[in-house]
Protein backbone atom coordinates (compact mmCIF):
# COMPACT_ATOMS: atom_id res chain seq x y z
CA UNK A 1 0.00 0.00 0.00
CA UNK A 2 2.84 2.34 0.87
CA UNK A 3 4.31 1.73 -2.50
CA UNK A 4 0.93 2.44 -4.00
CA UNK A 5 0.61 5.72 -2.14
CA UNK A 6 4.12 6.79 -3.00
CA UNK A 7 3.49 5.79 -6.56
CA UNK A 8 0.29 7.80 -6.54
CA UNK A 9 2.12 10.85 -5.19
CA UNK A 10 4.81 10.64 -7.82
CA UNK A 11 2.22 10.22 -10.51
CA UNK A 12 0.64 13.54 -9.58
CA UNK A 13 3.47 15.29 -11.39
CA UNK A 14 2.92 13.35 -14.61
CA UNK A 15 0.60 14.91 -17.21
CA UNK A 16 -2.63 12.94 -17.32
CA UNK A 17 -2.42 12.19 -21.03
CA UNK A 18 0.96 10.53 -20.47
CA UNK A 19 -0.45 8.11 -17.91
CA UNK A 20 -1.24 4.50 -18.63
CA UNK A 21 -4.66 3.27 -17.48
CA UNK A 22 -2.94 1.58 -14.54
CA UNK A 23 -1.17 4.79 -13.58
CA UNK A 24 -4.43 6.69 -13.89
CA UNK A 25 -6.24 4.30 -11.55
CA UNK A 26 -3.41 4.22 -9.01
CA UNK A 27 -3.20 8.00 -9.01
CA UNK A 28 -6.92 8.36 -8.41
CA UNK A 29 -6.89 5.67 -5.77
CA UNK A 30 -4.02 7.40 -3.95
CA UNK A 31 -5.76 10.79 -4.14
CA UNK A 32 -8.85 9.40 -2.45
CA UNK A 33 -6.70 8.28 0.47
CA UNK A 34 -4.64 11.44 0.91
CA UNK A 35 -6.80 14.50 0.43
CA UNK A 36 -9.14 16.52 2.56
CA UNK A 37 -12.09 17.69 0.56
CA UNK A 38 -15.67 18.82 0.77
CA UNK A 39 -18.05 18.96 -2.10
CA UNK A 40 -21.52 18.66 -3.52
CA UNK A 41 -22.25 16.20 -6.27
CA UNK A 42 -25.30 15.08 -8.14
CA UNK A 43 -26.25 11.47 -8.53
CA UNK A 44 -28.29 10.89 -11.64
CA UNK A 45 -30.08 7.59 -12.24
CA UNK A 46 -33.40 6.24 -13.47
CA UNK A 47 -34.43 9.64 -14.71
CA UNK A 48 -33.90 11.15 -11.29
CA UNK A 49 -31.32 13.59 -10.02
CA UNK A 50 -30.33 13.79 -6.37
CA UNK A 51 -27.80 16.04 -4.74
CA UNK A 52 -25.37 14.76 -2.13
CA UNK A 53 -22.83 16.36 0.14
CA UNK A 54 -19.57 14.66 1.04
CA UNK A 55 -16.85 15.74 3.47
CA UNK A 56 -13.62 13.85 3.92
CA UNK A 57 -10.89 14.55 6.43
CA UNK A 58 -7.54 12.82 6.64
CA UNK A 59 -6.24 13.01 10.20
CA UNK A 60 -2.64 13.48 11.23
CA UNK A 61 -2.08 9.78 11.86
CA UNK A 62 -3.56 8.87 8.50
CA UNK A 63 -6.99 8.09 9.87
CA UNK A 64 -10.04 8.95 7.81
CA UNK A 65 -13.23 10.66 8.89
CA UNK A 66 -16.06 11.13 6.46
CA UNK A 67 -19.62 12.27 6.23
CA UNK A 68 -22.06 11.70 3.39
CA UNK A 69 -25.64 12.90 3.32
CA UNK A 70 -28.43 13.58 0.93
CA UNK A 71 -29.52 17.16 0.38
CA UNK A 72 -33.04 16.10 -0.56
CA UNK A 73 -35.47 13.35 0.30
CA UNK A 74 -34.99 11.19 3.36
CA UNK A 75 -32.27 12.47 5.71
CA UNK A 76 -30.14 9.39 5.30
CA UNK A 77 -26.60 9.89 6.35
CA UNK A 78 -23.35 7.97 6.75
CA UNK A 79 -20.68 8.94 9.24
CA UNK A 80 -17.32 7.18 9.14
CA UNK A 81 -14.64 7.36 11.78
CA UNK A 82 -11.81 5.19 10.50
CA UNK A 83 -13.05 1.60 10.73
CA UNK A 84 -16.34 2.47 12.39
CA UNK A 85 -19.39 3.52 10.50
CA UNK A 86 -22.73 4.90 11.59
CA UNK A 87 -25.63 4.70 9.26
CA UNK A 88 -28.55 7.04 10.02
CA UNK A 89 -31.97 6.09 8.67
CA UNK A 90 -34.39 8.60 10.21
CA UNK A 91 -37.03 7.54 7.68
CA UNK A 92 -37.01 4.13 9.39
CA UNK A 93 -36.27 5.65 12.81
CA UNK A 94 -33.28 3.37 13.18
CA UNK A 95 -29.54 3.56 13.02
CA UNK A 96 -27.01 0.86 12.26
CA UNK A 97 -23.52 0.91 13.65
CA UNK A 98 -21.07 -1.32 11.88
CA UNK A 99 -17.40 -1.96 11.65
CA UNK A 100 -15.89 -1.77 8.21
CA UNK A 101 -14.93 -5.25 7.18
CA UNK A 102 -12.44 -4.19 4.60
CA UNK A 103 -9.46 -1.96 4.96
CA UNK A 104 -8.06 -0.29 1.90
CA UNK A 105 -5.00 -2.44 2.51
CA UNK A 106 -6.96 -5.54 1.65
CA UNK A 107 -9.49 -4.78 -1.00
CA UNK A 108 -9.76 -3.16 -3.37
CA UNK A 109 -6.15 -2.40 -3.86
CA UNK A 110 -5.35 -1.48 -7.41
CA UNK A 111 -1.83 -2.51 -8.24
CA UNK A 112 -0.12 -2.87 -11.61
CA UNK A 113 -0.47 -6.65 -11.79
CA UNK A 114 -4.23 -6.24 -11.39
CA UNK A 115 -4.33 -4.08 -14.49
CA UNK A 116 -3.13 -6.96 -16.63
CA UNK A 117 -5.94 -9.06 -15.22
CA UNK A 118 -8.48 -6.32 -15.77
CA UNK A 119 -7.55 -6.08 -19.42
CA UNK A 120 -8.88 -9.56 -19.98
CA UNK A 121 -12.38 -8.38 -19.07
CA UNK A 122 -12.29 -4.67 -19.92
CA UNK A 123 -10.88 -2.32 -22.52
CA UNK A 124 -9.10 0.58 -20.84
CA UNK A 125 -8.08 3.81 -22.47
CA UNK A 126 -6.87 7.14 -21.11
CA UNK A 127 -8.65 9.95 -22.93
CA UNK A 128 -6.71 12.64 -24.72
CA UNK A 129 -9.32 15.27 -23.98
CA UNK A 130 -9.55 17.58 -21.03
CA UNK A 131 -12.91 18.61 -19.62
CA UNK A 132 -13.94 21.07 -16.99
CA UNK A 133 -15.86 19.73 -14.03
CA UNK A 134 -16.69 21.70 -10.88
CA UNK A 135 -14.44 24.40 -12.30
CA UNK A 136 -11.44 22.07 -12.43
CA UNK A 137 -9.62 20.49 -15.35
CA UNK A 138 -10.30 16.79 -15.57
CA UNK A 139 -8.81 13.90 -17.51
CA UNK A 140 -10.64 10.78 -18.60
CA UNK A 141 -10.29 7.04 -18.29
CA UNK A 142 -12.72 4.88 -20.24
CA UNK A 143 -13.26 1.32 -19.12
CA UNK A 144 -15.56 -0.76 -21.27
CA UNK A 145 -16.62 -4.36 -20.63
CA UNK A 146 -15.67 -7.11 -23.04
CA UNK A 147 -18.83 -9.08 -22.24
CA UNK A 148 -22.36 -8.51 -21.01
CA UNK A 149 -21.78 -9.76 -17.46
CA UNK A 150 -20.39 -6.47 -16.19
CA UNK A 151 -20.69 -2.76 -16.71
CA UNK A 152 -18.20 -0.19 -17.90
CA UNK A 153 -17.08 3.13 -16.52
CA UNK A 154 -16.42 6.60 -17.85
CA UNK A 155 -14.23 8.23 -15.21
CA UNK A 156 -12.95 11.79 -14.98
CA UNK A 157 -10.35 12.82 -12.42
CA UNK A 158 -8.93 16.15 -11.37
CA UNK A 159 -5.76 16.84 -13.32
CA UNK A 160 -4.03 18.49 -10.38
CA UNK A 161 -4.80 16.03 -7.63
CA UNK A 162 -6.18 12.86 -9.23
CA UNK A 163 -9.43 13.09 -7.28
CA UNK A 164 -12.39 11.53 -9.05
CA UNK A 165 -14.77 14.25 -10.21
CA UNK A 166 -17.19 12.36 -12.36
CA UNK A 167 -18.02 8.68 -12.69
CA UNK A 168 -20.53 7.26 -15.12
CA UNK A 169 -21.63 3.67 -15.26
CA UNK A 170 -22.41 2.40 -18.74
CA UNK A 171 -23.68 -0.90 -20.04
CA UNK A 172 -22.21 -3.03 -22.82
CA UNK A 173 -23.83 -0.75 -25.41
CA UNK A 174 -22.41 2.33 -23.61
CA UNK A 175 -25.89 3.38 -22.51
CA UNK A 176 -25.59 5.61 -19.46
CA UNK A 177 -26.92 3.91 -16.31
CA UNK A 178 -25.99 6.33 -13.61
CA UNK A 179 -23.64 9.17 -12.98
CA UNK A 180 -21.89 10.99 -10.18
CA UNK A 181 -20.84 14.51 -10.98
CA UNK A 182 -19.29 17.06 -8.66
CA UNK A 183 -20.80 20.50 -9.08
CA UNK A 184 -18.72 22.14 -6.40
CA UNK A 185 -15.58 20.95 -4.69
CA UNK A 186 -13.00 22.34 -2.33
CA UNK A 187 -9.82 20.32 -2.03
CA UNK A 188 -7.54 20.77 0.96
CA UNK A 189 -7.89 23.11 3.90
CA UNK A 190 -8.87 22.37 7.43
CA UNK A 191 -12.17 20.65 8.12
CA UNK A 192 -13.61 21.47 11.54
CA UNK A 193 -15.23 18.66 13.53
CA UNK A 194 -18.64 20.29 13.39
CA UNK A 195 -18.79 19.61 9.65
CA UNK A 196 -18.50 15.91 10.40
CA UNK A 197 -21.39 15.84 12.85
CA UNK A 198 -24.66 14.18 11.76
CA UNK A 199 -27.83 16.22 11.32
CA UNK A 200 -29.87 13.63 13.25
CA UNK A 201 -29.10 13.11 16.94
CA UNK A 202 -28.13 9.54 17.80
CA UNK A 203 -30.60 9.50 20.67
CA UNK A 204 -33.47 10.03 18.25
CA UNK A 205 -32.96 6.65 16.61
CA UNK A 206 -33.10 3.05 17.73
CA UNK A 207 -29.63 1.69 17.19
CA UNK A 208 -28.58 -1.74 16.02
CA UNK A 209 -24.98 -2.58 16.70
CA UNK A 210 -23.25 -4.91 14.34
CA UNK A 211 -20.88 -7.57 15.57
CA UNK A 212 -19.03 -9.68 13.12
CA UNK A 213 -16.42 -12.26 12.85
CA UNK A 214 -14.37 -11.60 9.83
CA UNK A 215 -13.27 -14.93 8.41
CA UNK A 216 -10.50 -15.23 5.95
CA UNK A 217 -11.15 -16.85 2.63
CA UNK A 218 -8.98 -19.85 3.36
CA UNK A 219 -10.26 -20.46 6.88
CA UNK A 220 -13.89 -20.16 5.95
CA UNK A 221 -15.73 -23.37 5.41
CA UNK A 222 -19.27 -23.18 4.24
CA UNK A 223 -21.95 -25.57 3.08
CA UNK A 224 -23.14 -22.94 0.64
CA UNK A 225 -21.65 -23.01 -2.83
CA UNK A 226 -21.96 -20.63 -5.75
CA UNK A 227 -21.97 -22.69 -8.90
CA UNK A 228 -21.74 -20.08 -11.67
CA UNK A 229 -19.83 -16.83 -11.87
CA UNK A 230 -18.94 -14.49 -14.74
CA UNK A 231 -15.43 -14.95 -16.13
CA UNK A 232 -12.87 -13.28 -13.88
CA UNK A 233 -15.05 -13.12 -10.79
CA UNK A 234 -13.38 -14.77 -7.82
CA UNK A 235 -14.22 -15.01 -4.15
CA UNK A 236 -12.53 -12.08 -2.41
CA UNK A 237 -13.96 -12.39 1.05
CA UNK A 238 -16.31 -14.47 3.13
CA UNK A 239 -17.90 -13.04 6.25
CA UNK A 240 -20.14 -14.81 8.70
CA UNK A 241 -22.01 -12.70 11.15
CA UNK A 242 -25.22 -11.98 12.97
CA UNK A 243 -27.34 -9.35 11.28
CA UNK A 244 -27.89 -6.32 13.52
CA UNK A 245 -31.55 -5.87 12.63
CA UNK A 246 -32.96 -9.39 12.76
CA UNK A 247 -30.24 -11.06 14.77
CA UNK A 248 -30.18 -13.80 12.18
CA UNK A 249 -27.14 -15.70 10.95
CA UNK A 250 -25.83 -14.24 7.76
CA UNK A 251 -23.18 -15.38 5.37
CA UNK A 252 -21.79 -12.72 3.07
CA UNK A 253 -19.68 -13.72 0.09
CA UNK A 254 -17.98 -11.06 -2.01
CA UNK A 255 -16.99 -11.80 -5.58
CA UNK A 256 -15.15 -9.39 -7.83
CA UNK A 257 -13.23 -9.16 -11.06
CA UNK A 258 -11.14 -6.33 -9.60
CA UNK A 259 -13.48 -3.54 -10.62
CA UNK A 260 -17.04 -4.78 -10.34
CA UNK A 261 -18.15 -6.44 -7.13
CA UNK A 262 -21.12 -8.60 -6.31
CA UNK A 263 -22.31 -9.61 -2.87
CA UNK A 264 -24.10 -12.85 -2.10
CA UNK A 265 -26.05 -12.72 1.16
CA UNK A 266 -27.36 -15.95 2.62
CA UNK A 267 -29.55 -15.26 5.61
CA UNK A 268 -31.40 -17.67 7.86
CA UNK A 269 -35.08 -16.86 8.00
CA UNK A 270 -37.77 -18.08 10.33
CA UNK A 271 -41.32 -18.96 9.29
CA UNK A 272 -42.50 -15.74 10.94
CA UNK A 273 -40.30 -13.52 8.85
CA UNK A 274 -41.83 -11.49 6.09
CA UNK A 275 -40.77 -12.95 2.79
CA UNK A 276 -40.22 -10.33 0.13
CA UNK A 277 -41.05 -11.47 -3.37
CA UNK A 278 -38.39 -13.53 -4.99
CA UNK A 279 -37.01 -12.54 -8.36
CA UNK A 280 -35.16 -9.58 -9.78
CA UNK A 281 -35.16 -6.10 -8.34
CA UNK A 282 -33.56 -3.06 -9.85
CA UNK A 283 -32.37 0.02 -7.99
CA UNK A 284 -30.92 2.15 -10.71
CA UNK A 285 -27.70 0.59 -11.84
CA UNK A 286 -27.77 -1.78 -8.89
CA UNK A 287 -29.44 -5.09 -9.57
CA UNK A 288 -30.52 -7.64 -7.04
CA UNK A 289 -32.04 -11.08 -7.23
CA UNK A 290 -33.82 -12.77 -4.34
CA UNK A 291 -34.65 -16.45 -4.01
CA UNK A 292 -35.35 -18.89 -1.23
CA UNK A 293 -33.66 -22.18 -0.58
CA UNK A 294 -35.22 -24.01 2.36
CA UNK A 295 -35.06 -21.68 5.33
CA UNK A 296 -32.54 -19.38 3.76
CA UNK A 297 -32.98 -16.26 1.74
CA UNK A 298 -30.42 -15.75 -1.00
CA UNK A 299 -29.89 -12.15 -2.07
CA UNK A 300 -27.37 -11.33 -4.75
CA UNK A 301 -26.69 -7.64 -5.22
CA UNK A 302 -24.23 -5.60 -7.22
CA UNK A 303 -23.59 -2.96 -9.85
CA UNK A 304 -23.76 -5.57 -12.53
CA UNK A 305 -26.41 -6.46 -15.13
CA UNK A 306 -29.54 -8.31 -14.10
CA UNK A 307 -28.42 -11.41 -15.97
CA UNK A 308 -25.35 -11.60 -13.73
CA UNK A 309 -27.14 -11.43 -10.38
CA UNK A 310 -29.77 -13.86 -11.64
CA UNK A 311 -27.20 -16.35 -12.88
CA UNK A 312 -25.29 -16.24 -9.61
CA UNK A 313 -28.41 -16.41 -7.43
CA UNK A 314 -29.81 -19.40 -9.28
CA UNK A 315 -26.55 -21.26 -8.94
CA UNK A 316 -26.35 -21.05 -5.14
CA UNK A 317 -26.65 -24.52 -3.62
CA UNK A 318 -26.54 -25.95 -0.16
CA UNK A 319 -24.27 -28.94 0.40
CA UNK A 320 -21.20 -30.23 -1.26
CA UNK A 321 -22.87 -31.80 -4.27
Amino acid at each position, binding site marked *: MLAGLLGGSLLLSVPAFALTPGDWLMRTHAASKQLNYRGTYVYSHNGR*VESMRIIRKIEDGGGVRERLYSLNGAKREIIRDNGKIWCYLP*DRKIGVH*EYLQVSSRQFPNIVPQDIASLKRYYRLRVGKQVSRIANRSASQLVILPRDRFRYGFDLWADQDTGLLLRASLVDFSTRLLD*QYLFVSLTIGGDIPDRELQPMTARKDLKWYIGTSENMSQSAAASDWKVGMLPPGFTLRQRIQRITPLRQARLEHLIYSDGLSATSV*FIEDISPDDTRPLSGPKSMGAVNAYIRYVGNARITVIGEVPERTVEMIAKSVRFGTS
Partner: protein
Amino acid sequence: MTEKLSELIDGELRGDLATQLSQIVADGALRQTWSRYHRIGAVLREEHSPLSADFAARFEARLKDEPVILCPQRDGNAAIVVVKASPDESVGVRLWQNLALAASLAAIALLSWHQFGNPAVKRGGPDYVAQLQQSSQKVQQRARPADDLDIYLFEHGQYASVSDLNGLMAYTKFVSYGNGD
Protein backbone atom coordinates in the same frame (compact mmCIF):
# COMPACT_ATOMS: atom_id res chain seq x y z
CA MET B 1 -51.15 47.73 -21.99
CA THR B 2 -50.29 45.11 -19.38
CA GLU B 3 -53.33 46.21 -17.49
CA LYS B 4 -55.47 45.56 -20.57
CA LEU B 5 -53.94 42.11 -20.88
CA SER B 6 -54.84 41.40 -17.29
CA GLU B 7 -58.41 42.60 -17.95
CA LEU B 8 -58.60 40.38 -21.01
CA ILE B 9 -57.48 37.32 -19.02
CA ASP B 10 -59.98 38.14 -16.30
CA GLY B 11 -62.75 38.62 -18.86
CA GLU B 12 -63.12 42.28 -17.93
CA LEU B 13 -61.81 43.92 -21.09
CA ARG B 14 -64.14 46.53 -22.46
CA GLY B 15 -64.13 48.38 -25.76
CA ASP B 16 -62.93 47.33 -29.21
CA LEU B 17 -61.72 43.78 -28.53
CA ALA B 18 -60.22 43.23 -31.98
CA THR B 19 -58.10 46.37 -31.87
CA GLN B 20 -56.84 45.66 -28.38
CA LEU B 21 -56.11 42.05 -29.19
CA SER B 22 -54.07 43.05 -32.19
CA GLN B 23 -52.05 45.40 -29.99
CA ILE B 24 -51.33 42.56 -27.56
CA VAL B 25 -50.32 40.19 -30.34
CA ALA B 26 -48.03 42.81 -31.83
CA ASP B 27 -46.21 43.30 -28.54
CA GLY B 28 -43.66 40.52 -28.02
CA ALA B 29 -43.38 41.08 -24.26
CA LEU B 30 -47.14 40.97 -23.86
CA ARG B 31 -47.32 37.78 -25.94
CA GLN B 32 -44.88 36.16 -23.52
CA THR B 33 -46.83 37.42 -20.53
CA TRP B 34 -50.03 36.04 -22.06
CA SER B 35 -48.38 32.69 -22.60
CA ARG B 36 -46.95 32.65 -19.09
CA TYR B 37 -50.32 33.46 -17.50
CA HIS B 38 -51.90 30.59 -19.37
CA ARG B 39 -49.15 28.14 -18.47
CA ILE B 40 -49.55 29.01 -14.80
CA GLY B 41 -53.30 28.71 -15.14
CA ALA B 42 -52.95 25.32 -16.77
CA VAL B 43 -50.76 24.14 -13.90
CA LEU B 44 -53.27 25.35 -11.34
CA ARG B 45 -56.10 23.61 -13.21
CA GLU B 46 -53.92 20.47 -13.52
CA GLU B 47 -54.33 20.53 -17.26
CA HIS B 48 -50.63 19.78 -17.57
CA SER B 49 -48.14 18.21 -15.28
CA PRO B 50 -45.88 20.94 -13.93
CA LEU B 51 -42.90 18.76 -14.70
CA SER B 52 -43.12 17.41 -18.17
CA ALA B 53 -42.81 13.66 -18.36
CA ASP B 54 -39.46 13.88 -20.05
CA PHE B 55 -38.00 16.46 -17.68
CA ALA B 56 -35.55 14.08 -16.05
CA ALA B 57 -34.70 12.48 -19.36
CA ARG B 58 -33.95 15.86 -20.85
CA PHE B 59 -31.95 16.74 -17.76
CA GLU B 60 -29.87 13.62 -18.10
CA ALA B 61 -29.43 14.36 -21.74
CA ARG B 62 -28.01 17.74 -20.76
CA LEU B 63 -25.55 16.06 -18.44
CA LYS B 64 -24.64 13.79 -21.27
CA ASP B 65 -23.79 16.80 -23.37
CA GLU B 66 -20.50 16.80 -21.59
CA PRO B 67 -17.75 14.70 -23.16
CA VAL B 68 -19.30 11.42 -24.16
CA ILE B 69 -18.19 8.03 -25.29
CA LEU B 70 -19.15 6.85 -28.68
CA CYS B 71 -18.38 3.23 -28.92
CA PRO B 72 -19.67 1.21 -31.83
CA GLN B 73 -19.69 -2.32 -30.53
CA ARG B 74 -21.61 -4.30 -33.08
CA ASP B 75 -19.45 -7.33 -32.57
CA GLY B 76 -17.91 -6.49 -29.24
CA ASN B 77 -14.51 -5.93 -30.84
CA ALA B 78 -14.90 -2.54 -32.39
CA ALA B 79 -12.51 0.21 -31.44
CA ILE B 80 -13.30 2.67 -28.72
CA VAL B 81 -13.96 6.13 -30.00
CA VAL B 82 -13.94 8.91 -27.48
CA VAL B 83 -15.22 12.25 -28.62
CA LYS B 84 -15.73 15.44 -26.76
CA ALA B 85 -18.80 17.52 -27.12
CA SER B 86 -18.48 21.23 -26.71
CA PRO B 87 -17.50 21.91 -23.11
CA ASP B 88 -20.47 22.91 -21.05
CA GLU B 89 -18.96 25.06 -18.37
CA SER B 90 -22.17 26.28 -16.87
CA VAL B 91 -23.78 22.90 -16.39
CA GLY B 92 -23.50 23.23 -12.62
CA VAL B 93 -25.20 26.58 -12.57
CA ARG B 94 -27.96 25.38 -14.87
CA LEU B 95 -28.32 22.27 -12.78
CA TRP B 96 -29.18 24.30 -9.70
CA GLN B 97 -31.43 26.54 -11.71
CA ASN B 98 -33.28 23.49 -12.99
CA LEU B 99 -33.50 21.95 -9.54
CA ALA B 100 -34.82 25.21 -8.10
CA LEU B 101 -37.35 25.44 -10.93
CA ALA B 102 -38.40 21.84 -10.37
CA ALA B 103 -38.88 22.46 -6.66
CA SER B 104 -40.91 25.59 -7.29
CA LEU B 105 -43.15 23.92 -9.83
CA ALA B 106 -43.62 20.87 -7.62
CA ALA B 107 -44.70 23.18 -4.80
CA ILE B 108 -47.18 24.90 -7.12
CA ALA B 109 -48.55 21.53 -8.19
CA LEU B 110 -49.03 20.39 -4.60
CA LEU B 111 -50.75 23.61 -3.59
CA SER B 112 -52.93 23.64 -6.68
CA TRP B 113 -54.14 20.10 -6.08
CA HIS B 114 -55.19 20.94 -2.57
CA GLN B 115 -56.71 24.23 -3.62
CA PHE B 116 -58.46 23.17 -6.78
CA GLY B 117 -58.32 19.40 -7.00
CA ASN B 118 -60.46 18.68 -4.00
CA PRO B 119 -63.01 21.44 -3.45
CA ALA B 120 -64.74 19.47 -0.68
CA VAL B 121 -61.80 20.08 1.60
CA LYS B 122 -61.58 23.63 2.88
CA ARG B 123 -58.06 24.88 2.60
CA GLY B 124 -56.46 25.44 5.99
CA GLY B 125 -59.18 23.53 7.87
CA PRO B 126 -58.63 20.40 9.94
CA ASP B 127 -59.59 18.08 7.07
CA TYR B 128 -57.13 19.87 4.86
CA VAL B 129 -54.31 19.37 7.36
CA ALA B 130 -55.28 15.71 7.86
CA GLN B 131 -55.26 15.18 4.12
CA LEU B 132 -51.83 16.72 3.85
CA GLN B 133 -50.56 14.40 6.58
CA GLN B 134 -52.15 11.38 4.91
CA SER B 135 -50.58 12.13 1.60
CA SER B 136 -47.24 12.58 3.26
CA GLN B 137 -47.60 9.20 5.01
CA LYS B 138 -48.57 7.51 1.77
CA VAL B 139 -45.46 8.81 0.11
CA GLN B 140 -43.34 7.55 3.00
CA GLN B 141 -44.98 4.13 2.94
CA ARG B 142 -44.37 3.76 -0.73
CA ALA B 143 -40.76 4.73 -0.28
CA ARG B 144 -40.12 2.50 2.72
CA PRO B 145 -38.24 -0.62 1.75
CA ALA B 146 -39.83 -3.79 3.04
CA ASP B 147 -37.12 -6.19 2.08
CA ASP B 148 -34.03 -4.84 3.84
CA LEU B 149 -32.40 -4.45 0.46
CA ASP B 150 -31.20 -1.08 1.66
CA ILE B 151 -29.33 -2.75 4.50
CA TYR B 152 -27.78 -5.19 2.05
CA LEU B 153 -26.92 -2.23 -0.13
CA PHE B 154 -25.20 -0.65 2.86
CA GLU B 155 -23.26 -3.85 3.56
CA HIS B 156 -22.31 -4.13 -0.09
CA GLY B 157 -21.20 -0.49 -0.24
CA GLN B 158 -17.75 -1.11 1.12
CA TYR B 159 -17.02 -3.57 -1.66
CA ALA B 160 -18.19 -1.45 -4.57
CA SER B 161 -14.62 -1.15 -5.65
CA VAL B 162 -14.65 1.51 -8.34
CA SER B 163 -16.63 3.83 -6.15
CA ASP B 164 -14.04 3.26 -3.46
CA LEU B 165 -11.90 5.57 -5.53
CA ASN B 166 -13.91 8.25 -3.80
CA GLY B 167 -14.47 6.88 -0.33
CA LEU B 168 -17.97 7.16 1.03
CA MET B 169 -19.41 7.87 -2.40
CA ALA B 170 -19.76 4.11 -2.57
CA TYR B 171 -22.68 4.55 -0.21
CA THR B 172 -24.51 7.01 -2.42
CA LYS B 173 -27.00 4.41 -3.57
CA PHE B 174 -27.77 3.50 -0.01
CA VAL B 175 -28.31 7.12 1.00
CA SER B 176 -30.43 7.57 -2.09
CA TYR B 177 -32.49 4.44 -1.40
CA GLY B 178 -36.00 5.23 -0.29
CA ASN B 179 -36.17 8.42 -2.29
CA GLY B 180 -38.27 6.70 -4.89
CA ASP B 181 -36.53 3.41 -5.61
